[in-house]
């Protein structure tokens, strides 16, 4: 009974006015958007400066890119299911979905690191040409964000393991992580379109 009351109170409050923390986090995401915008601008300027080195067409593989994209896309919907479970107050289910999201995100980071190490081993590291410098800066900034998201997911799973009900504070944290995770997926849409696919035409 006590459990239900806490949940419905927290939920009702959350539903009727979004706390300023969530809005503040939204503003942070928008500034992050400007960082990525700058890096995309840099990449757009340097995309043909190969300095006699390998081009994107020679380096990128569609199959690996498709797998990375699929992992990130599926992790978006699994996080969404986690949020739905959170609004229902099903803590175990939230932890399970967060765990699945974590594994998918980890798979993405693993594939990206594998791709990077493969490129560097081939002599196509960030020091090879302006194109590769811009490529590594942009893509690894996104990868670093995903890695931070992974740490955040672990923190949330641990925080949820000790509670019997999801209070408003925890719900806000989950909501902000949701915005963060889905935002990174949006950045990835631009990465796979303008960095990878556009280089392979």
């Amino acid at each position, binding site marked *: 009974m006590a459990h*239900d*009351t806490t*949940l*419905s109170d927290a*939920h*009702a409050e959350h*539903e009727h*006015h*979004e706390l300023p923390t969530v*809005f503040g986090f*939204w*503003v942070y995401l*928008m*500034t992050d*958007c*400007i960082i990525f*915008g*700058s890096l*995309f*601008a*840099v990449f*757009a*300027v340097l995309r*043909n400066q190969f300095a006699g080195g390998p081009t994107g067409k020679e380096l990128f593989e*569609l199959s690996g890119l*498709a797998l990375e*994209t699929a992992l990130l*896309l599926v992790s*978006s*919907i699994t996080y*969404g*299911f986690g*949020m*739905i479970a959170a*609004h*229902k*107050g099903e803590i175990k289910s939230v932890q399970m979905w967060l765990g699945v999201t974590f594994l998918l995100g980890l798979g993405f980071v693993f594939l990206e690191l594998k791709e990077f190490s493969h490129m560097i081993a081939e002599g196509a590291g960030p020091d090879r040409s302006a194109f590769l410098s811009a490529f590594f800066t942009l893509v690894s900034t996104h990868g670093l964000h995903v890695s931070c998201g992974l740490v955040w997911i672990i923190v949330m799973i641990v925080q949820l393991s000790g509670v019997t009900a999801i209070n408003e504070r925890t719900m806000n944290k989950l909501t902000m992580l949701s*915005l963060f995770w*889905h*935002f990174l*997926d*949006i950045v990835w*849409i*631009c990465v*796979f*379109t*303008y960095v990878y*696919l*556009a280089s*392979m*035409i």
Partner: protein
Amino acid sequence: MSTDHSAHGGSSHGSAGSYVIGFVLAVILTAAAFMVVMGHSLSPSATLTTIAALAAVQVVVHLVFFLHMNTTSEQAWNNKVFLFTLGFVVILIVGTLFIMGNTAAHMMSR
């Protein structure tokens, strides 16, 4: 009663249905972009235009179905900040391309 109501999750948080719709649309748009590039059936400029358009649509799909952006008054400030940022980023990218393109043309670096 109120407990029962709250168990269903408000529309502003997105329901399982809206997540699934968003996901299906995202998969279709992503697959279309990959197929256009892999198919090599369009000219390079037409391919670029097509994948750019597909990406723009997919960004909107993600914003609406995953980040739950909407036009309610509760979201008014989020939307204002978003539009400001969008304008900022467009000026940043278009301005950079214009200035650097102009510089390259004058320096005859290509």
